[in-house]
């Protein structure tokens, strides 16, 4: 039998046949590794989770035309600069002055589906328009016109060409069904929202985008990079960040990550103390065995390698348990705090195991070194 095989046989026998003793040590390591792995999962998932939360506060990037307006192609090009999985939504807006009951109103043409993604905080009483001929009325506008959901309204537009001195002005007119009343708490409540094609039809002009709102789930550094790339690569578009959103997101993230990091360090220290205490108890309890091993010829190096082997095996088992339980713990936190699923990070499994083994080894070092001080003569006379 090779020495290595006997070594493994000894350390596994020590763990398996002294289960109750070792269970305490394993428990302390596993708990430490669980909290550690869980907190690290949360630490790395917080930006994604918080990003998703912050996306509820609206767009964080605004695109405007460098010379007034830009096209849908320019917007599509700009969007290619942002990774697909990070782009939550990109809503184009075009604004024109229309008239309802002869009173001027600002009409906004947009992509309703994208607008819902970039402005999730918009409250719609009724439903969002889903087809041409449907319109969303801002709450203030609806109150002044006394419009309700389901009303049929007439929207007029005086073409630009008609204003150039023609005596008889013929307005473009379209009829819309009010599908919902929009509350935002902002100026949007004075506008009416319709599809881009309806507004183009009403105004009789071609496609045009005045401004686009983008919601991107990324850190402020990445956002700045995307914004710079868009401005540099898409000539017709100028991108800027919505500072109040990105800055507060960065601040909250930094503080939250700092807090998680601090708790992780404290847990790490507590785990080390716990493991060191347990290993000290294990060594003290096994002084006679150490004395015997030394009496029958074990060198200090052998004693250290055997105890370290046991520690490493405990660390390995604790690490595996911790990686599994840590994911469960982090998933629960993610579900309860952020109401979303945690993304599994495969790399965290080997990292947890290695860290667990390292911490166990490090905290066992002192008690194991003291094991070599045991006098082999201890075993004589049954001392």
């Amino acid at each position, binding site marked *: 039998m*090779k020495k290595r095989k006997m070594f493994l046989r000894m350390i596994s026998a020590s763990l398996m046949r002294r289960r109750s003793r070792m269970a305490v040590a394993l428990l302390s390591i596993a708990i430490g590794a669980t909290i550690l792995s869980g907190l690290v999962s949360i630490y790395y998932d917080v930006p994604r989770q918080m990003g998703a939360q912050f996306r509820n506060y609206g767009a964080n990037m605004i695109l405007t035309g460098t010379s007034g307006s830009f096209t849908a192609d320019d917007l599509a090009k700009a969007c290619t600069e942002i990774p697909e999985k990070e782009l939550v939504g990109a809503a184009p807006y075009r604004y024109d002055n229309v008239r309802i009951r002869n009173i001027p109103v600002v009409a906004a043409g947009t992509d309703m589906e994208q607008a819902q993604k970039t402005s999730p905080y918009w409250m719609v009483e009724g439903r969002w328009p889903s087809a041409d001929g449907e319109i969303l009325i801002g709450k203030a506008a609806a109150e002044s016109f006394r419009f309700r959901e389901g009303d049929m309204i007439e929207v007029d537009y005086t073409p630009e060409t008609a204003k150039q001195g023609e005596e008889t002005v013929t307005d473009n007119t379209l009829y819309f069904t009010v599908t919902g009343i929009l509350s935002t708490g902002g100026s949007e409540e004075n506008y009416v929202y319709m599809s881009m094609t309806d507004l183009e039809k009403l105004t009789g002009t071609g496609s045009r985008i005045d401004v686009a709102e983008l919601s991107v789930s990324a850190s402020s550094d990445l956002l700045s990079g995307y914004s710079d790339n868009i401005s540099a690569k898409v000539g017709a578009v100028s991108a800027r960040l919505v500072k109040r959103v990105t800055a507060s997101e960065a601040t909250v993230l930094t503080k939250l990550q700092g807090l998680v990091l601090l708790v992780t360090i404290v847990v790490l220290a507590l785990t080390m103390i716990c493991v060191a205490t347990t290993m000290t108890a294990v060594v003290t309890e096994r002084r006679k*065995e150490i004395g015997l091993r030394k009496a029958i010829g074990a060198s200090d190096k052998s004693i250290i390698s055997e105890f370290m082997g046991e520690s490493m095996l405990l660390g390995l088992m604790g690490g595996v348990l911790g990686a599994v339980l840590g994911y469960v713990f982090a998933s629960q936190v993610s579900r309860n705090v952020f109401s979303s699923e945690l993304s599994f990070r495969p790399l965290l499994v080997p990292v947890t195991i290695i860290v667990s083994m390292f911490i166990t080894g490090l905290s066992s070092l002192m008690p194991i070194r003291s094991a070599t001080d045991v006098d082999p003569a201890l*075993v*004589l006379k049954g001392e």
Partner: protein
Amino acid sequence: MSLLELKNVSKIYGELHALDNVSLKVEKGEWVSIMGPSGSGKSTMMNIIGCMDKPTKGEVLLDGVDISKESKKSLTTIRRDKIGLIFQQFHLVNYLTAVENVMLAQYYHSIPDEKEALEALARVGLADRAKHLPSQLSGGEQQRVCVARALINYPEIILADEPTGNLDEANEEVVVELFNKLHSEGTTLIVVTHDPEVAEVAQRTLVLRSGRLAKEKINENFTGKIRFDDQTPV
């Protein structure tokens, strides 16, 4: 050349002379008993002969090497290669089986060999108990595992410290019989004991008192067998 020779060996702790100018020789293949009351210096002598302690004065020659001048590391090597230890309390590793306990001595000495360890257990009559844990063995069986562990590396000397101290008469006889067998195979035995019956089985008995060698008795009628009817102290 004697296998073991102590020349004017003293071990002094402050004012206390645990061993005081002791000289003795043990020849290869000899069976020697050491007796004496508590505090007579038996343990100190065992520690020194067993390479677990060094004398304050004097020389200890083991196989021609003065072990009193060796480093702690060298003493570990000498102990591993030349000495087999048998303890009163057996001192088996409680989570290793009988055969694994024997293999433990092989592990520190050279290469563990399960077949050889099983043969050693068979020699002490425990072939069928090889896979048992110490807690599943009787005191006598545990001591026999301890003997198998001591002889597995073919040591120059077997040093037994009160080997029958925790055994009943039947097991005492079994252990003494094992010693007789080892002695007949040429193994050198040094047995520290309180028990006169065990002591006088040896070829020679040394009596220590207050750290000095007080008496030496040669067993003219050496048979290697224990005699329970003879209670005469040495």
